[in-house]
Protein backbone atom coordinates (compact mmCIF):
# COMPACT_ATOMS: atom_id res chain seq x y z
CA UNK A 1 0.00 0.00 0.00
CA UNK A 2 1.41 3.35 -1.01
CA UNK A 3 1.32 6.28 1.41
CA UNK A 4 -1.67 8.54 1.08
CA UNK A 5 -1.37 12.28 0.53
CA UNK A 6 -1.45 13.68 4.09
CA UNK A 7 -4.78 15.55 3.77
CA UNK A 8 -6.38 12.40 2.35
CA UNK A 9 -4.84 10.53 5.25
CA UNK A 10 -6.73 12.76 7.67
CA UNK A 11 -9.98 12.26 5.74
CA UNK A 12 -9.31 8.55 5.75
CA UNK A 13 -9.12 8.63 9.56
CA UNK A 14 -12.47 10.37 9.76
CA UNK A 15 -14.31 7.81 7.66
CA UNK A 16 -15.73 4.73 9.33
CA UNK A 17 -15.14 1.30 7.77
CA UNK A 18 -17.86 -0.17 5.55
CA UNK A 19 -19.56 3.19 5.11
CA UNK A 20 -20.87 4.74 1.90
CA UNK A 21 -18.96 7.68 0.49
CA UNK A 22 -19.56 10.16 -2.32
CA UNK A 23 -16.44 12.09 -3.35
CA UNK A 24 -17.08 15.36 -5.20
CA UNK A 25 -14.13 16.04 -7.47
CA UNK A 26 -12.47 12.69 -6.80
CA UNK A 27 -9.42 13.42 -8.98
CA UNK A 28 -7.58 10.27 -9.98
CA UNK A 29 -9.54 8.24 -7.43
CA UNK A 30 -6.69 7.78 -4.93
CA UNK A 31 -8.84 8.30 -1.83
CA UNK A 32 -11.70 6.10 -2.98
CA UNK A 33 -9.41 3.33 -4.04
CA UNK A 34 -7.67 3.50 -0.68
CA UNK A 35 -10.97 3.44 1.19
CA UNK A 36 -12.22 0.50 -0.84
CA UNK A 37 -9.09 -1.55 -0.33
CA UNK A 38 -8.53 -0.74 3.33
CA UNK A 39 -11.94 -0.02 4.76
CA UNK A 40 -14.37 -1.86 2.47
CA UNK A 41 -15.99 1.48 1.78
CA UNK A 42 -18.53 1.58 -1.04
CA UNK A 43 -18.24 4.73 -3.02
CA UNK A 44 -18.87 6.83 -6.07
CA UNK A 45 -16.68 9.67 -7.23
CA UNK A 46 -17.76 12.61 -9.36
CA UNK A 47 -15.17 14.11 -11.65
CA UNK A 48 -15.14 16.34 -14.70
CA UNK A 49 -11.61 15.99 -16.07
CA UNK A 50 -11.11 13.50 -18.94
CA UNK A 51 -7.67 12.32 -17.85
CA UNK A 52 -8.87 11.72 -14.31
CA UNK A 53 -11.85 9.73 -15.58
CA UNK A 54 -9.52 7.34 -17.37
CA UNK A 55 -7.27 7.09 -14.29
CA UNK A 56 -10.22 6.34 -12.02
CA UNK A 57 -11.48 3.64 -14.37
CA UNK A 58 -8.02 2.11 -14.47
CA UNK A 59 -8.05 2.11 -10.66
CA UNK A 60 -11.45 0.43 -10.61
CA UNK A 61 -13.10 3.45 -8.98
CA UNK A 62 -16.81 4.05 -9.62
CA UNK A 63 -16.34 7.38 -11.27
CA UNK A 64 -19.16 9.37 -12.80
CA UNK A 65 -18.28 12.12 -15.22
CA UNK A 66 -20.34 15.15 -14.33
CA UNK A 67 -20.13 18.78 -13.35
CA UNK A 68 -20.69 19.33 -9.64
CA UNK A 69 -21.92 22.83 -10.41
CA UNK A 70 -24.95 21.23 -12.03
CA UNK A 71 -25.96 19.96 -8.58
CA UNK A 72 -26.39 16.52 -7.12
CA UNK A 73 -29.97 15.96 -8.23
CA UNK A 74 -29.01 12.51 -9.57
CA UNK A 75 -28.55 11.40 -5.96
CA UNK A 76 -31.34 10.78 -3.49
CA UNK A 77 -31.49 12.27 -0.01
CA UNK A 78 -29.55 10.43 2.70
CA UNK A 79 -27.96 7.98 0.30
CA UNK A 80 -24.41 8.34 1.69
CA UNK A 81 -22.74 8.32 5.07
CA UNK A 82 -20.17 10.89 3.99
CA UNK A 83 -19.93 13.35 1.14
CA UNK A 84 -16.34 14.47 0.68
CA UNK A 85 -15.08 17.48 -1.19
CA UNK A 86 -11.33 17.88 -1.15
CA UNK A 87 -9.79 21.14 -2.39
CA UNK A 88 -12.85 21.86 -4.53
CA UNK A 89 -15.20 24.03 -2.43
CA UNK A 90 -13.39 27.18 -3.49
CA UNK A 91 -13.70 26.25 -7.18
CA UNK A 92 -17.46 25.68 -7.39
CA UNK A 93 -20.07 28.18 -8.58
CA UNK A 94 -22.16 28.15 -5.42
CA UNK A 95 -20.27 26.90 -2.35
CA UNK A 96 -23.26 27.60 -0.09
CA UNK A 97 -25.62 25.51 -2.22
CA UNK A 98 -23.11 22.71 -2.53
CA UNK A 99 -22.92 22.50 1.27
CA UNK A 100 -26.71 22.12 1.37
CA UNK A 101 -26.53 19.47 -1.32
CA UNK A 102 -23.77 17.60 0.52
CA UNK A 103 -25.90 17.41 3.64
CA UNK A 104 -28.99 16.48 1.66
CA UNK A 105 -27.45 13.37 0.10
CA UNK A 106 -25.07 12.59 2.98
CA UNK A 107 -25.24 12.21 6.73
CA UNK A 108 -21.95 14.06 7.19
CA UNK A 109 -19.86 16.33 5.01
CA UNK A 110 -16.10 16.62 4.82
CA UNK A 111 -14.40 19.54 3.06
CA UNK A 112 -10.87 20.74 2.72
CA UNK A 113 -9.89 24.12 1.28
CA UNK A 114 -6.97 26.56 1.23
CA UNK A 115 -7.25 29.16 3.99
CA UNK A 116 -7.20 32.57 2.37
CA UNK A 117 -6.65 34.11 5.79
CA UNK A 118 -3.13 32.71 5.99
CA UNK A 119 -0.62 35.41 6.96
CA UNK A 120 1.32 35.11 3.70
CA UNK A 121 -1.80 35.90 1.67
CA UNK A 122 -2.57 38.84 3.94
CA UNK A 123 0.99 40.10 3.60
CA UNK A 124 1.03 39.90 -0.19
CA UNK A 125 -2.23 41.78 -0.53
CA UNK A 126 -1.49 44.35 2.14
CA UNK A 127 2.02 45.25 1.10
CA UNK A 128 2.31 44.00 -2.48
CA UNK A 129 -1.19 45.12 -3.38
CA UNK A 130 -1.59 42.03 -5.54
CA UNK A 131 -3.41 38.73 -5.39
CA UNK A 132 -1.28 36.21 -3.50
CA UNK A 133 0.84 33.56 -5.15
CA UNK A 134 1.79 30.78 -2.73
CA UNK A 135 2.50 27.06 -2.61
CA UNK A 136 -1.17 26.45 -1.88
CA UNK A 137 -2.45 29.03 -4.39
CA UNK A 138 0.10 28.82 -7.18
CA UNK A 139 -1.90 30.19 -10.17
CA UNK A 140 -2.21 33.89 -11.07
CA UNK A 141 -5.67 35.41 -10.57
CA UNK A 142 -6.64 35.07 -14.26
CA UNK A 143 -5.84 31.37 -14.43
CA UNK A 144 -6.89 30.08 -11.05
CA UNK A 145 -9.85 27.73 -10.80
CA UNK A 146 -10.43 29.17 -7.32
CA UNK A 147 -13.29 31.60 -7.66
CA UNK A 148 -14.65 31.50 -4.10
CA UNK A 149 -11.72 31.67 -1.73
CA UNK A 150 -12.51 32.01 1.94
CA UNK A 151 -10.90 32.06 5.36
CA UNK A 152 -11.55 29.68 8.22
CA UNK A 153 -13.66 32.34 9.87
CA UNK A 154 -15.70 32.83 6.69
CA UNK A 155 -16.42 29.15 6.42
CA UNK A 156 -17.36 28.77 10.05
CA UNK A 157 -19.59 31.84 9.86
CA UNK A 158 -21.40 30.34 6.85
CA UNK A 159 -21.86 27.04 8.68
CA UNK A 160 -23.26 28.92 11.66
CA UNK A 161 -25.67 30.88 9.47
CA UNK A 162 -26.84 27.65 7.83
CA UNK A 163 -27.22 25.78 11.07
CA UNK A 164 -24.46 23.37 10.14
CA UNK A 165 -22.74 21.74 13.09
CA UNK A 166 -18.95 21.42 12.79
CA UNK A 167 -17.89 18.09 14.26
CA UNK A 168 -14.17 18.26 13.70
CA UNK A 169 -11.63 20.70 12.38
CA UNK A 170 -8.03 20.11 11.46
CA UNK A 171 -5.60 22.74 10.25
CA UNK A 172 -2.32 22.04 8.50
CA UNK A 173 0.35 23.72 6.43
CA UNK A 174 1.09 22.94 2.79
CA UNK A 175 3.23 19.98 3.87
CA UNK A 176 0.13 18.88 5.76
CA UNK A 177 1.81 19.21 9.12
CA UNK A 178 0.35 20.98 12.06
CA UNK A 179 2.06 23.12 14.74
CA UNK A 180 1.48 25.12 17.92
CA UNK A 181 1.08 28.48 16.14
CA UNK A 182 -1.60 26.99 13.98
CA UNK A 183 -3.49 25.87 17.04
CA UNK A 184 -3.16 29.25 18.67
CA UNK A 185 -4.17 31.34 15.66
CA UNK A 186 -5.53 28.97 13.02
CA UNK A 187 -7.01 31.64 10.77
CA UNK A 188 -3.60 33.28 10.53
CA UNK A 189 -1.32 30.27 10.34
CA UNK A 190 -3.25 27.40 8.76
CA UNK A 191 -2.64 26.96 5.06
CA UNK A 192 -5.19 24.20 4.58
CA UNK A 193 -8.34 23.55 6.60
CA UNK A 194 -10.24 20.29 6.94
CA UNK A 195 -13.75 20.16 8.37
CA UNK A 196 -16.21 17.41 9.19
CA UNK A 197 -19.77 18.59 9.72
CA UNK A 198 -23.43 17.63 9.77
CA UNK A 199 -26.85 19.21 9.88
CA UNK A 200 -27.24 20.96 13.21
Amino acid at each position, binding site marked *: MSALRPDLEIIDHWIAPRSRVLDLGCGDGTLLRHLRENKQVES*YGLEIDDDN*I*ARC*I*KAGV*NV*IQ*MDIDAGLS*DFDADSFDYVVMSQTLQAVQHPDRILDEMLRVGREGIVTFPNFGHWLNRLQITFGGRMPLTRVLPEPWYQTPNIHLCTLRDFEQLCHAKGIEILQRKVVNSAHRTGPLMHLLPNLFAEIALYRFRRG
Partner: protein
Amino acid sequence: MPDTIPGDSVGLVTPQTIQFDAPLTLDCGRTLPGYQLIYETYGELNAARSNAVLICHALSSDHHAAGYHSTEDRKPGWWEACIGPGKPIDTDRFFVVCPNNLGGCKGSTGPLTINPDTGKRYGPDFPIVTVGDWVRSQAQLADRLGIERWAAVIGGSLGGMQALQWAIDHPQRLRHSIVIAAAPKLSAQNIAFNEVARQAIMSDPDFHAGRYYEHDTVPRRGLMLARMLGHITYLSDESMRKKFGRELRQGKINYGFDVEFQVESYLRYQGRSFVERFDANSYLLMTKALDYFDPASKTGGDLAAALKPVQAHFLVISFTSDWRFAPARSREMVKALTEGDNPVAYAEIEAHQGHDAFLMPIPQYLKVFRAYMERVAEETNR
Protein backbone atom coordinates in the same frame (compact mmCIF):
# COMPACT_ATOMS: atom_id res chain seq x y z
CA MET B 1 -9.56 -4.03 -48.32
CA PRO B 2 -6.31 -2.13 -47.84
CA ASP B 3 -3.33 -3.64 -49.69
CA THR B 4 -2.07 -5.18 -46.52
CA ILE B 5 -4.19 -6.01 -43.51
CA PRO B 6 -3.30 -3.61 -40.68
CA GLY B 7 -1.59 -5.23 -37.70
CA ASP B 8 -4.38 -4.13 -35.40
CA SER B 9 -7.10 -5.84 -37.45
CA VAL B 10 -8.38 -9.35 -36.84
CA GLY B 11 -7.79 -9.86 -40.57
CA LEU B 12 -9.80 -12.31 -42.66
CA VAL B 13 -12.79 -13.78 -40.84
CA THR B 14 -15.45 -16.32 -41.74
CA PRO B 15 -18.95 -16.28 -40.28
CA GLN B 16 -20.38 -19.46 -38.81
CA THR B 17 -23.96 -20.56 -38.42
CA ILE B 18 -25.56 -22.56 -35.68
CA GLN B 19 -28.97 -24.24 -35.71
CA PHE B 20 -31.26 -24.43 -32.69
CA ASP B 21 -33.92 -27.09 -32.95
CA ALA B 22 -35.79 -26.37 -29.73
CA PRO B 23 -38.73 -24.00 -30.12
CA LEU B 24 -38.20 -20.46 -28.85
CA THR B 25 -41.15 -18.73 -27.24
CA LEU B 26 -41.09 -15.02 -27.92
CA ASP B 27 -42.34 -12.09 -25.85
CA CYS B 28 -45.14 -11.53 -28.35
CA GLY B 29 -46.53 -14.94 -27.41
CA ARG B 30 -45.64 -16.64 -30.68
CA THR B 31 -43.11 -19.45 -30.96
CA LEU B 32 -40.34 -19.97 -33.46
CA PRO B 33 -40.17 -23.74 -34.13
CA GLY B 34 -36.39 -23.53 -34.41
CA TYR B 35 -33.93 -20.94 -35.59
CA GLN B 36 -30.50 -20.25 -36.91
CA LEU B 37 -27.98 -17.65 -35.80
CA ILE B 38 -25.05 -16.48 -37.86
CA TYR B 39 -22.11 -15.17 -35.87
CA GLU B 40 -18.44 -14.33 -36.01
CA THR B 41 -15.75 -14.91 -33.42
CA TYR B 42 -12.35 -13.32 -33.01
CA GLY B 43 -9.56 -14.35 -30.66
CA GLU B 44 -9.23 -17.56 -28.67
CA LEU B 45 -11.39 -18.89 -25.87
CA ASN B 46 -9.11 -19.60 -22.90
CA ALA B 47 -9.05 -22.92 -21.05
CA ALA B 48 -11.14 -21.56 -18.18
CA ARG B 49 -13.67 -20.23 -20.71
CA SER B 50 -13.62 -16.97 -18.81
CA ASN B 51 -12.49 -14.51 -21.47
CA ALA B 52 -15.52 -14.48 -23.76
CA VAL B 53 -17.22 -11.20 -24.57
CA LEU B 54 -20.49 -10.80 -26.41
CA ILE B 55 -20.93 -7.95 -28.87
CA CYS B 56 -24.53 -6.90 -29.47
CA HIS B 57 -25.23 -5.01 -32.64
CA ALA B 58 -27.37 -1.97 -33.31
CA LEU B 59 -30.35 -1.34 -35.59
CA SER B 60 -28.89 -1.97 -39.00
CA SER B 61 -25.59 -3.68 -38.34
CA ASP B 62 -24.86 -7.37 -38.13
CA HIS B 63 -22.48 -10.13 -37.03
CA HIS B 64 -19.60 -8.71 -39.06
CA ALA B 65 -18.10 -6.52 -36.35
CA ALA B 66 -14.42 -6.67 -37.28
CA GLY B 67 -11.98 -7.77 -39.96
CA TYR B 68 -12.62 -8.57 -43.61
CA HIS B 69 -14.56 -11.34 -45.32
CA SER B 70 -12.36 -11.31 -48.38
CA THR B 71 -9.50 -9.44 -49.89
CA GLU B 72 -12.08 -7.73 -52.12
CA ASP B 73 -13.85 -6.04 -49.19
CA ARG B 74 -13.65 -2.28 -49.34
CA LYS B 75 -14.46 -1.82 -45.66
CA PRO B 76 -13.85 -3.82 -42.49
CA GLY B 77 -16.55 -4.80 -39.97
CA TRP B 78 -18.64 -2.11 -38.32
CA TRP B 79 -16.70 -1.90 -35.04
CA GLU B 80 -13.19 -2.16 -36.41
CA ALA B 81 -12.34 0.96 -34.36
CA CYS B 82 -12.77 -0.96 -31.12
CA ILE B 83 -12.15 -4.66 -31.85
CA GLY B 84 -8.76 -6.10 -32.76
CA PRO B 85 -5.31 -6.84 -31.40
CA GLY B 86 -4.33 -4.07 -28.99
CA LYS B 87 -7.67 -2.29 -29.37
CA PRO B 88 -10.08 -1.69 -26.45
CA ILE B 89 -11.73 -5.06 -27.08
CA ASP B 90 -8.36 -6.73 -27.43
CA THR B 91 -8.60 -9.93 -29.44
CA ASP B 92 -5.23 -11.01 -28.03
CA ARG B 93 -6.94 -11.24 -24.65
CA PHE B 94 -10.62 -11.80 -25.33
CA PHE B 95 -12.67 -14.32 -27.26
CA VAL B 96 -15.16 -12.09 -29.04
CA VAL B 97 -18.55 -13.38 -30.21
CA CYS B 98 -20.89 -11.30 -32.35
CA PRO B 99 -24.14 -12.80 -33.63
CA ASN B 100 -26.67 -11.35 -36.06
CA ASN B 101 -29.94 -10.89 -34.21
CA LEU B 102 -33.13 -12.79 -34.84
CA GLY B 103 -35.28 -10.95 -37.34
CA GLY B 104 -32.17 -9.73 -39.13
CA CYS B 105 -31.43 -10.20 -42.79
CA LYS B 106 -27.79 -11.27 -42.81
CA GLY B 107 -28.10 -14.98 -42.12
CA SER B 108 -29.93 -15.36 -38.83
CA THR B 109 -33.54 -16.46 -38.94
CA GLY B 110 -35.70 -13.55 -40.06
CA PRO B 111 -38.22 -12.38 -42.62
CA LEU B 112 -36.05 -13.71 -45.47
CA THR B 113 -36.10 -17.23 -43.98
CA ILE B 114 -38.47 -19.85 -45.40
CA ASN B 115 -41.45 -20.33 -43.12
CA PRO B 116 -41.77 -24.12 -42.62
CA ASP B 117 -45.56 -23.77 -42.41
CA THR B 118 -45.97 -22.21 -45.84
CA GLY B 119 -42.82 -23.05 -47.73
CA LYS B 120 -42.48 -19.35 -48.52
CA ARG B 121 -40.43 -16.60 -46.94
CA TYR B 122 -41.82 -15.31 -43.67
CA GLY B 123 -41.87 -11.75 -44.88
CA PRO B 124 -44.35 -9.75 -42.81
CA ASP B 125 -45.44 -12.91 -40.96
CA PHE B 126 -42.19 -13.09 -39.06
CA PRO B 127 -43.06 -12.52 -35.41
CA ILE B 128 -42.15 -9.24 -33.74
CA VAL B 129 -38.99 -9.83 -31.73
CA THR B 130 -37.89 -7.89 -28.69
CA VAL B 131 -34.59 -7.11 -27.00
CA GLY B 132 -35.55 -9.76 -24.43
CA ASP B 133 -35.98 -12.33 -27.21
CA TRP B 134 -32.56 -11.50 -28.56
CA VAL B 135 -31.01 -11.92 -25.15
CA ARG B 136 -32.73 -15.30 -24.79
CA SER B 137 -31.40 -16.49 -28.14
CA GLN B 138 -27.93 -15.15 -27.35
CA ALA B 139 -27.99 -17.07 -24.06
CA GLN B 140 -28.70 -20.24 -26.02
CA LEU B 141 -25.78 -19.43 -28.27
CA ALA B 142 -23.62 -19.04 -25.15
CA ASP B 143 -24.80 -22.46 -23.92
CA ARG B 144 -23.81 -24.06 -27.19
CA LEU B 145 -20.42 -22.36 -27.20
CA GLY B 146 -19.84 -23.57 -23.64
CA ILE B 147 -19.73 -20.07 -22.20
CA GLU B 148 -21.31 -20.07 -18.79
CA ARG B 149 -20.46 -16.50 -18.01
CA TRP B 150 -19.43 -13.65 -20.28
CA ALA B 151 -16.50 -11.55 -19.15
CA ALA B 152 -18.53 -8.70 -20.64
CA VAL B 153 -21.57 -8.05 -22.76
CA ILE B 154 -20.99 -4.94 -24.85
CA GLY B 155 -23.06 -2.88 -27.21
CA GLY B 156 -23.72 0.58 -28.62
CA SER B 157 -27.16 2.09 -29.21
CA LEU B 158 -29.69 -0.76 -29.56
CA GLY B 159 -26.73 -3.03 -28.75
CA GLY B 160 -26.30 -1.21 -25.44
CA MET B 161 -29.93 -1.94 -24.65
CA GLN B 162 -29.20 -5.63 -25.08
CA ALA B 163 -26.23 -5.33 -22.74
CA LEU B 164 -28.55 -3.76 -20.15
CA GLN B 165 -31.23 -6.43 -20.66
CA TRP B 166 -28.61 -9.15 -20.26
CA ALA B 167 -27.65 -7.82 -16.84
CA ILE B 168 -31.30 -7.90 -15.76
CA ASP B 169 -32.30 -11.24 -17.28
CA HIS B 170 -29.15 -13.26 -16.58
CA PRO B 171 -27.43 -11.60 -13.62
CA GLN B 172 -25.09 -14.55 -13.06
CA ARG B 173 -24.05 -14.89 -16.65
CA LEU B 174 -22.00 -11.72 -17.17
CA ARG B 175 -19.39 -9.96 -15.09
CA HIS B 176 -19.57 -6.64 -16.90
CA SER B 177 -22.11 -4.79 -18.96
CA ILE B 178 -20.91 -2.01 -21.22
CA VAL B 179 -23.66 0.26 -22.44
CA ILE B 180 -22.64 2.86 -25.01
CA ALA B 181 -24.75 5.64 -26.54
CA ALA B 182 -27.96 4.00 -25.40
CA ALA B 183 -31.09 4.79 -23.40
CA PRO B 184 -33.22 2.85 -20.92
CA LYS B 185 -36.21 3.37 -23.25
CA LEU B 186 -37.11 5.41 -26.27
CA SER B 187 -38.58 8.88 -25.95
CA ALA B 188 -41.72 9.92 -27.82
CA GLN B 189 -39.43 11.75 -30.23
CA ASN B 190 -37.38 8.59 -30.86
CA ILE B 191 -40.55 6.60 -31.53
CA ALA B 192 -41.84 9.35 -33.79
CA PHE B 193 -38.74 9.10 -35.99
CA ASN B 194 -39.15 5.33 -36.16
CA GLU B 195 -42.78 5.71 -37.12
CA VAL B 196 -41.96 8.06 -39.99
CA ALA B 197 -39.37 5.53 -41.17
CA ARG B 198 -41.93 2.72 -41.04
CA GLN B 199 -44.54 4.79 -42.84
CA ALA B 200 -42.04 5.59 -45.57
CA ILE B 201 -41.51 1.86 -46.12
CA MET B 202 -45.11 0.75 -45.77
CA SER B 203 -46.53 3.46 -48.02
CA ASP B 204 -44.18 2.55 -50.84
CA PRO B 205 -46.34 0.98 -53.60
CA ASP B 206 -43.68 -1.71 -53.95
CA PHE B 207 -44.15 -2.78 -50.33
CA HIS B 208 -47.15 -5.02 -51.13
CA ALA B 209 -48.03 -5.42 -47.44
CA GLY B 210 -44.58 -6.84 -46.85
CA ARG B 211 -44.90 -9.55 -49.53
CA TYR B 212 -42.68 -7.77 -52.03
CA TYR B 213 -40.52 -10.88 -52.46
CA GLU B 214 -43.50 -12.53 -54.14
CA HIS B 215 -43.77 -9.59 -56.51
CA ASP B 216 -40.10 -9.75 -57.25
CA THR B 217 -39.50 -6.24 -56.05
CA VAL B 218 -38.40 -4.30 -52.97
CA PRO B 219 -39.82 -1.07 -51.48
CA ARG B 220 -36.72 0.72 -52.60
CA ARG B 221 -37.95 4.29 -52.25
CA GLY B 222 -39.47 3.70 -48.83
CA LEU B 223 -36.43 1.98 -47.39
CA MET B 224 -34.19 4.62 -48.86
CA LEU B 225 -36.25 7.40 -47.23
CA ALA B 226 -36.27 5.54 -43.93
CA ARG B 227 -32.50 5.30 -44.01
CA MET B 228 -32.05 8.93 -45.02
CA LEU B 229 -34.18 9.98 -42.08
CA GLY B 230 -32.37 7.63 -39.72
CA HIS B 231 -29.04 8.91 -40.90
CA ILE B 232 -29.91 12.49 -39.99
CA THR B 233 -30.53 11.34 -36.42
CA TYR B 234 -27.16 9.55 -36.33
CA LEU B 235 -25.25 12.73 -37.13
CA SER B 236 -25.23 16.06 -35.33
CA ASP B 237 -25.85 19.54 -36.60
CA GLU B 238 -22.17 20.26 -36.05
CA SER B 239 -20.89 17.13 -37.77
CA MET B 240 -23.10 17.83 -40.81
CA ARG B 241 -21.83 21.38 -40.91
CA LYS B 242 -18.25 20.13 -40.67
CA LYS B 243 -18.75 17.44 -43.29
CA PHE B 244 -20.87 19.28 -45.85
CA GLY B 245 -21.66 22.80 -44.79
CA ARG B 246 -23.68 24.31 -47.62
CA GLU B 247 -21.25 23.09 -50.21
CA LEU B 248 -22.74 22.76 -53.69
CA ARG B 249 -21.89 19.85 -55.95
CA GLN B 250 -21.58 21.98 -59.08
CA GLY B 251 -20.42 25.09 -57.32
CA LYS B 252 -23.62 26.99 -58.14
CA ILE B 253 -27.36 26.95 -57.50
CA ASN B 254 -29.38 25.53 -60.39
CA TYR B 255 -32.86 26.49 -59.23
CA GLY B 256 -34.17 22.93 -59.44
CA PHE B 257 -34.90 19.83 -57.43
CA ASP B 258 -31.96 17.72 -58.47
CA VAL B 259 -29.19 17.10 -56.00
CA GLU B 260 -27.47 20.41 -55.43
CA PHE B 261 -26.09 20.43 -51.93
CA GLN B 262 -23.47 17.89 -50.94
CA VAL B 263 -25.55 16.83 -47.97
CA GLU B 264 -28.36 15.80 -50.33
CA SER B 265 -25.98 13.76 -52.39
CA TYR B 266 -24.61 12.09 -49.28
CA LEU B 267 -28.02 11.19 -47.90
CA ARG B 268 -29.20 9.79 -51.22
CA TYR B 269 -26.05 7.72 -51.49
CA GLN B 270 -26.54 6.40 -47.94
CA GLY B 271 -30.16 5.59 -48.70
CA ARG B 272 -29.43 3.85 -52.01
CA SER B 273 -26.57 1.75 -50.69
CA PHE B 274 -28.67 0.72 -47.70
CA VAL B 275 -31.37 -0.66 -49.99
CA GLU B 276 -28.76 -2.98 -51.50
CA ARG B 277 -27.77 -4.42 -48.16
CA PHE B 278 -30.85 -4.42 -45.96
CA ASP B 279 -34.30 -5.94 -45.99
CA ALA B 280 -37.30 -3.66 -45.41
CA ASN B 281 -39.19 -6.17 -43.23
CA SER B 282 -36.12 -6.57 -41.04
CA TYR B 283 -35.86 -2.81 -40.73
CA LEU B 284 -39.48 -2.62 -39.59
CA LEU B 285 -38.84 -5.33 -36.99
CA MET B 286 -35.71 -3.68 -35.63
CA THR B 287 -37.45 -0.34 -35.17
CA LYS B 288 -40.23 -2.11 -33.28
CA ALA B 289 -37.74 -3.80 -30.98
CA LEU B 290 -36.38 -0.35 -30.21
CA ASP B 291 -39.81 1.13 -29.54
CA TYR B 292 -40.82 -1.68 -27.20
CA PHE B 293 -37.61 -1.72 -25.17
CA ASP B 294 -38.45 -0.54 -21.66
CA PRO B 295 -37.20 -2.82 -18.88
CA ALA B 296 -38.75 -0.54 -16.25
CA SER B 297 -42.23 -1.19 -17.63
CA LYS B 298 -42.35 -4.34 -15.51
CA THR B 299 -41.65 -2.38 -12.31
CA GLY B 300 -44.10 0.46 -12.76
CA GLY B 301 -41.59 2.67 -14.52
CA ASP B 302 -39.02 2.35 -11.74
CA LEU B 303 -35.74 1.59 -13.49
CA ALA B 304 -33.82 1.11 -10.24
CA ALA B 305 -36.35 -1.56 -9.24
CA ALA B 306 -35.97 -3.21 -12.65
CA LEU B 307 -32.21 -3.30 -12.08
CA LYS B 308 -32.50 -4.95 -8.64
CA PRO B 309 -31.35 -8.37 -9.83
CA VAL B 310 -28.26 -6.93 -11.52
CA GLN B 311 -24.86 -8.19 -10.41
CA ALA B 312 -22.70 -7.04 -13.29
CA HIS B 313 -20.41 -4.06 -13.05
CA PHE B 314 -21.28 -1.35 -15.54
CA LEU B 315 -19.46 1.01 -17.82
CA VAL B 316 -21.80 3.56 -19.36
CA ILE B 317 -20.57 5.90 -22.09
CA SER B 318 -22.35 8.75 -23.85
CA PHE B 319 -21.33 11.40 -26.38
CA THR B 320 -21.98 15.11 -25.94
CA SER B 321 -23.43 15.74 -29.43
CA ASP B 322 -25.61 12.60 -29.52
CA TRP B 323 -29.17 13.89 -29.64
CA ARG B 324 -30.72 10.55 -30.54
CA PHE B 325 -29.72 9.08 -27.18
CA ALA B 326 -28.36 12.13 -25.40
CA PRO B 327 -26.07 11.95 -22.34
CA ALA B 328 -29.08 12.64 -20.11
CA ARG B 329 -30.51 9.27 -21.21
CA SER B 330 -27.31 7.51 -20.15
CA ARG B 331 -27.42 9.35 -16.83
CA GLU B 332 -30.89 7.88 -16.22
CA MET B 333 -29.25 4.46 -16.25
CA VAL B 334 -26.34 5.62 -14.11
CA LYS B 335 -28.77 7.10 -11.57
CA ALA B 336 -30.74 3.87 -11.36
CA LEU B 337 -27.52 1.90 -10.94
CA THR B 338 -26.20 4.13 -8.16
CA GLU B 339 -29.55 3.96 -6.40
CA GLY B 340 -29.09 0.22 -6.22
CA ASP B 341 -25.43 0.49 -5.13
CA ASN B 342 -24.30 -1.19 -8.34
CA PRO B 343 -20.72 -0.54 -9.38
CA VAL B 344 -20.74 1.79 -12.35
CA ALA B 345 -18.35 4.08 -14.17
CA TYR B 346 -19.72 6.73 -16.47
CA ALA B 347 -17.88 8.73 -19.11
CA GLU B 348 -19.36 11.54 -21.16
CA ILE B 349 -17.18 11.88 -24.22
CA GLU B 350 -16.77 15.27 -25.87
CA ALA B 351 -17.47 14.50 -29.53
CA HIS B 352 -19.10 16.32 -32.45
CA GLN B 353 -20.03 13.18 -34.41
CA GLY B 354 -23.48 12.71 -32.91
CA HIS B 355 -24.89 9.26 -32.25
CA ASP B 356 -22.48 7.66 -34.73
CA ALA B 357 -19.59 8.64 -32.45
CA PHE B 358 -19.76 5.24 -30.78
CA LEU B 359 -18.42 3.69 -33.98
CA MET B 360 -15.49 6.07 -34.31
CA PRO B 361 -11.92 6.06 -33.02
CA ILE B 362 -12.28 9.08 -30.74
CA PRO B 363 -9.15 9.18 -28.54
CA GLN B 364 -10.82 9.82 -25.15
CA TYR B 365 -13.49 7.20 -25.92
CA LEU B 366 -10.89 4.58 -26.80
CA LYS B 367 -8.83 5.52 -23.75
CA VAL B 368 -11.71 5.06 -21.32
CA PHE B 369 -12.95 1.91 -23.06
CA ARG B 370 -9.43 0.43 -23.05
CA ALA B 371 -8.83 1.29 -19.39
CA TYR B 372 -12.03 -0.52 -18.45
CA MET B 373 -11.40 -3.55 -20.62
CA GLU B 374 -7.90 -3.90 -19.20
CA ARG B 375 -9.43 -4.37 -15.79
CA VAL B 376 -11.90 -6.89 -17.18
CA ALA B 377 -8.98 -8.78 -18.71
CA GLU B 378 -6.99 -8.72 -15.46
CA GLU B 379 -9.91 -10.27 -13.58
CA THR B 380 -10.27 -12.87 -16.28
CA ASN B 381 -6.73 -14.07 -15.69
CA ARG B 382 -7.02 -14.04 -11.93
